[in-house]
């Protein structure tokens, strides 16, 4: 499939000199769902704002379906819908009027039946003529999504769509994202939660301190993240790894008084039970057990170190 969104050498310094994005390169294919994962202040919102034209960038080039987002901003922006991280809506306007406004602003001819359809899908149809101020937080978030979809965009940005949202609505949101993709919409969303990325994304990008550390198929990333280590401390040092354990991914520690077993939590069964019973059978006595999980942080660190090296 063709690249839909391409970002080349994008960097951004805020007015105070702070470098929020450092040479970002990214390609997104059409109808892909990409999750941007990263801690607070990583630069997720900045990246999205830059693509949408809300924020200016310092260097680089961004194109959408071949249109440069600066030189050909009209064509590019018509295709983009964006749900901001912070809800900002006109409190005293009615739901349907804010949608009409958004649709018109993006250059589309009025189409109330499309907008009502949209409200229906977001379970907001009965709130059609309510003022925004009368809605609950979750409803407002859905209005915000409806606004972003009001002009039938081909690329949708969701900046932390599920922050402060209950389980029910979160599931609805995921469903909506999949439905949109089936209709040909490309979705880029940001999140703090690896589970969320896992649940909906095709690919996951990890961003930290303004750097896009990696963009990977979801599966392989989850694999890395699910990696755990079991450290078995032994009563007495061993000369060699017992042959009975050779089937496992086990190495002898440097002190020869511990065994290190690497396994993946997501592969179903860990095999720990068997290992421990094998050890007991062979008369090897262990005095302590310890497990370590490779966290997002570890992956960040190893990626940063790889880059430095």
């Amino acid at each position, binding site marked *: 499939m063709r690249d839909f969104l391409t970002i080349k050498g994008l960097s951004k310094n805020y007015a105070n000199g702070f470098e929020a994005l450092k040479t970002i390169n990214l390609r997104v294919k059409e109808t892909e769902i990409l999750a941007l994962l990263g801690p607070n202040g990583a630069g997720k919102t900045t990246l999205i*704002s830059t693509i949408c*034209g809300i*924020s*200016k960038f310092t260097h680089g080039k961004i194109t959408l379906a071949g249109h440069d987002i600066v030189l050909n901003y009209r064509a590019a922006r018509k295709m983009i819908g964006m749900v901001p991280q912070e809800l900002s809506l006109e409190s005293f306007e009615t739901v349907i009027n804010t949608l009409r406004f958004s649709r018109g602003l993006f250059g589309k001819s009025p189409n109330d039946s499309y907008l009502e359809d949209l409200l229906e899908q977001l379970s907001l149809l009965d709130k059609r003529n309510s003022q925004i101020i009368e809605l609950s937080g979750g409803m407002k978030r859905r209005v915000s999504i409806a606004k972003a979809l009001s002009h039938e965009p081909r690329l949708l940005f969701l900046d932390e769509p599920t922050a402060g949202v209950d389980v029910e609505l979160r599931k609805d949101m995921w469903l909506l994202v999949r439905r949109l993709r089936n209709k040909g919409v490309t979705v880029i969303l940001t999140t703090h939660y690896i589970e969320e990325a896992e649940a909906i994304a095709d690919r996951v990008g990890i961003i930290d301190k303004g750097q896009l550390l990696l963009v990977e198929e979801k599966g392989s990333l989850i694999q890395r993240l699910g990696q755990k280590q079991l450290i078995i401390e032994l009563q007495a040092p061993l000369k060699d790894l017992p042959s009975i354990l050779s089937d496992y991914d086990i190495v002898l520690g440097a002190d020869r008084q511990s065994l290190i077993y690497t396994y993946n939590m997501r592969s179903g069964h860990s095999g720990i039970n068997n290992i421990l019973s094998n050890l007991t059978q062979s008369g090897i006595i262990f005095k302590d057990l310890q497990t370590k999980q490779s966290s997002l942080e570890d992956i960040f660190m190893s990626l940063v170190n790889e880059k430095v090296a």
Partner: protein
Amino acid sequence: MNYYGIKAIYKFEMTRFFRTLFQSFVSPVIATSLYFVVFGAAIGSRIQEIDNVSYGAFIVPGLIMLTVITQSISNSSFGIFFPKFVGTIYELLSAPVSFFEIVLGYVGAAATKSLFIGLVILSTSMLFVDFKILYPGMMILFLILTCLSFALLGFILGIWAKNFEQLQLVPLLIVTPMVFLGGSFYSISMLSSFWQTVSLFNPVVYLISGFRWCFFGVADVSIATSLCAVSGFMILCLAIIAWIFKSGWQLRT
């Protein structure tokens, strides 16, 4: 051109106006009526005619200008400041609209509102004093130009302002004195020659003088000068706004 975009902004702004229609009209109408009672009837009856126009009638164009200028500025500055304040500006900045289209929408709506109010005040004043408008076509043209220019100025103010205090301070400290000292209530020729010269640096003088000419055919400065002044002012404001959008000043981080 994104016509739907312009229309969307214009309509959205006008809805706000219609939602608060009563407040929008009632305060300028009451204020103007008070001016007529105080200056027109109470004090005006003791003031002699100026250029063969009774004082009550003489102040009509000035009063309309006073209201139209303040309304244009406040409508338009609020119109663009508000989305900035509540955060909805993100949508405007990410939309496929050019600066010119945004300005057309916001400034057009603000100018429409103040034009309405200006006409309402004109009708109100007819209840208080007798007068005839010599050049009605020119009068409307002048009114529209004034509404547009000051709505443009208000737009700049709304983008510049960082808080509500600033939004109110500029009209209060700069515009109101300029309008009052611009000959709303007197003819510049009534001043000493020194103050007459000073007054010529006040752009509002040209507006009021030109507008009064449309009513009574008498003016402090020639109508051509007035038209040039208001057009020049409008172009200056447009140029500033064009620069604002190009540089992203106060709008894009």
